[in-house]
């Protein structure tokens, strides 16, 4: 299947500053591509380039197999949803949704039919005669989606569509977008800087930093096998614990030594990884640290750690300890008996850890 969006060696400068550097991405029909990265890394700029709202400086960009160099936004068969919703403030919801069709001269009956269908789908029928200013954030978001949906485009572009909503609504809308994607089988490019959103929505994630792609992969690749420390730190909440350690070879595996809170070394055995250099950073996700005795298996290694902080969070309890001079967070059961200031036996699942080069941050295993 030919990729629906194919970006090759794309560069984008503003004046003399390079904003995007050598971007290569391709998406298949039905993909849900999420662009993540910290603020200012160029996500919106890339999206604007795809939409044709910004000219590209170098490289090529094709949609549906057709080169887009000289195609204006309206002819690219795309639809876009913006962070600020960008609803036309003086028009009613219905007009907001149909205005594009009206301008393109679509006949009234068809306009009505499409409006009807979309309003149904998004459950905004009762709102059709309101103005954007009379809507709540979530409702506005729905209308903005409606405006995109009536176009039946080849490609949907979303620029942080949920970041103006409060936490609760964000979760709800996220689920709705996911459902929409599954129902429509549409192709989507979605920008966010919320990594949970990225994980839950994407079929494919692009992690960016400073205009450069750091990693492209499925959510589980990105989560479980981050390509470097930046990705490891960026994805997941609480973030992956990145602990400086010494590694020594041990048969087919390695022995990892970490400095505990009181200076005594803690030793862990990783039987699955070999060929590590002496200085490494070991990356462990909080959910891969558990109370000793809760799970069992060969890859589990135990160590006693002094607990600094206990944060019960309803479903789970987070505890913070110190290893290798860093605060390390572990996700324990809600019913844990760990107490702040007390030592606690923790088990580390070494089958799931990542190793990084301290200097470059590159992944080792």
């Amino acid at each position, binding site marked *: 299947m030919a990729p629906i969006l194919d970006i090759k060696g794309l560069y984008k400068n503003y004046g003399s500053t390079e904003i995007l550097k050598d971007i290569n991405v391709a998406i298949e029909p039905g993909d849900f591509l999420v662009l993540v990265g910290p603020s200012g890394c160029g996500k919106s700029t890339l999206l604007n380039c795809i939409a*044709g*709202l*910004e*000219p*590209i400086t170098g490289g090529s960009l094709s949609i549906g197999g057709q080169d887009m*160099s*000289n*195609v*204006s*936004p309206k002819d690219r068969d795309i639809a876009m949803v913006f962070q600020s919703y960008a609803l036309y403030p003086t028009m009613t919801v219905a007009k907001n949704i149909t205005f594009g069709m009206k301008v393109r001269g679509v006949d009234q009956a068809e306009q009505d039919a499409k409006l009807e269908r979309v309003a149904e789908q998004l459950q905004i029928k009762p709102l059709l005669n309101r103005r954007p200013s009379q809507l709540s954030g979530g409702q506005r978001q729905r209308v903005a989606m409606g405006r995109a949906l009536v176009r039946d485009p080849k490609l949907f572009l979303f620029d942080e569509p949920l970041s103006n909503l409060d936490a609760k609504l964000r979760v709800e809308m996220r689920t709705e977008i996911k459902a929409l994607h599954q129902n429509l089988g549409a192709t989507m490019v979605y920008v966010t800087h919320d990594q949970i959103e990225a994980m839950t929505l994407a079929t494919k994630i692009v992690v960016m930093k400073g205009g450069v792609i750091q990693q492209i992969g499925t959510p589980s690749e990105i989560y479980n096998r981050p390509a470097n420390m930046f990705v490891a730190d960026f994805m997941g909440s609480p973030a992956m614990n990145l602990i400086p350690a010494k590694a020594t070879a041990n048969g087919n595996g390695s022995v990892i030594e970490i400095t505990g809170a009181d200076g005594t070394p803690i030793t862990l055995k990783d039987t699955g990884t070999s060929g590590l250099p002496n200085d490494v950073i070991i990356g462990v996700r909080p959910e891969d640290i558990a109370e000793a005795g809760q799970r069992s298996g060969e890859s589990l290694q135990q160590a006693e750690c002094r607990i600094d902080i206990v944060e019960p969070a309803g479903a789970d309890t987070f505890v913070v300890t110190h290893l290798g001079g860093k605060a390390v967070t572990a996700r324990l059961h809600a019913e844990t008996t760990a107490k702040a200031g007390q030592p606690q036996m923790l088990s580390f699942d070494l089958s799931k850890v990542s190793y990084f080069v301290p200097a470059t941050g590159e992944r080792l295993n």
Partner: protein
Amino acid sequence: MTDAAFTNTPARTQGKAVTVALRWLLYVLLIAFALFYLAPLFVMVTTSLKSLEEIRTGDLIALPREVTFDAWATAWSGACTGIQCEGVRPYFWNSVLIAVPAVLISTLIGAINGYVVAQWQFRGANVFFALLLFGCFIPFQVVLLPMARMLGLMGIAGTIPGLIFVHVVYGLGFTTLFFRNYYVSIPSELVKAAKVDGAGFFRIFWSIFLPLSLPIIVVTVIWQFTQIWNDFLFGVSFSQAGTQPVTVALNNIVNSTTGVKEYNVDMAAAIIAALPTLIVYVIAGKYFIRGLTAGSVKG
């Protein structure tokens, strides 16, 4: 924002030639309007640089054949207003003496009023503000006579302090409006934080609000300065010999009904009288509009 959004679209549907032609048309129109706005100033400047002889014989918009600054010298220090022939100079300084304190005082009071109305809401503050705003719209002719009586009762009739007082009173509406609208957009949490920190009314104003107010101070000062400097009605009504502002002198020079009219001197005097406000607008006009839209008339 918008222009950036418009111009960078990579692909245009119209042909390039049409686009270029439209762009030329646009510039031609813009320049035509610029000429319209500049015409009176142009006439004034060129006329002021011509000799009387040339004015009588020449074209209105012709450039001076021979540039002479005599008219300027006369207007500044030699033109007669009545029996005194000192030009507009002494009146110019009167205007400065009136405008500077009046602008400063009305700005300061406006700032305090705006601060109270915006940040120390109490019952009736809005009523006060509405009353004050309505006062902005009162035609000044209405107040001339009673004001004269009041000034007399206060013992400052015909004096520069009297004129300052009048300008301050009728400037309050606008200065308060400007500051109020500016301060309304400052989060009230700032006042709360300062209260918890133990600062009082004046301390908060002085240490926190005033240092923040530069943009709106610029707006207010420009506005007030223009209004007060250009005022004629109050100047002619509430001054006496020795306290008349420059607009009154200008009027005496320009509007004399008999005798030979020295148009070049009239124009030179007019430009001299307009120079301070003109300079202020050219230098600070940008900040003026920016501040104004941030303040009083924001959408």
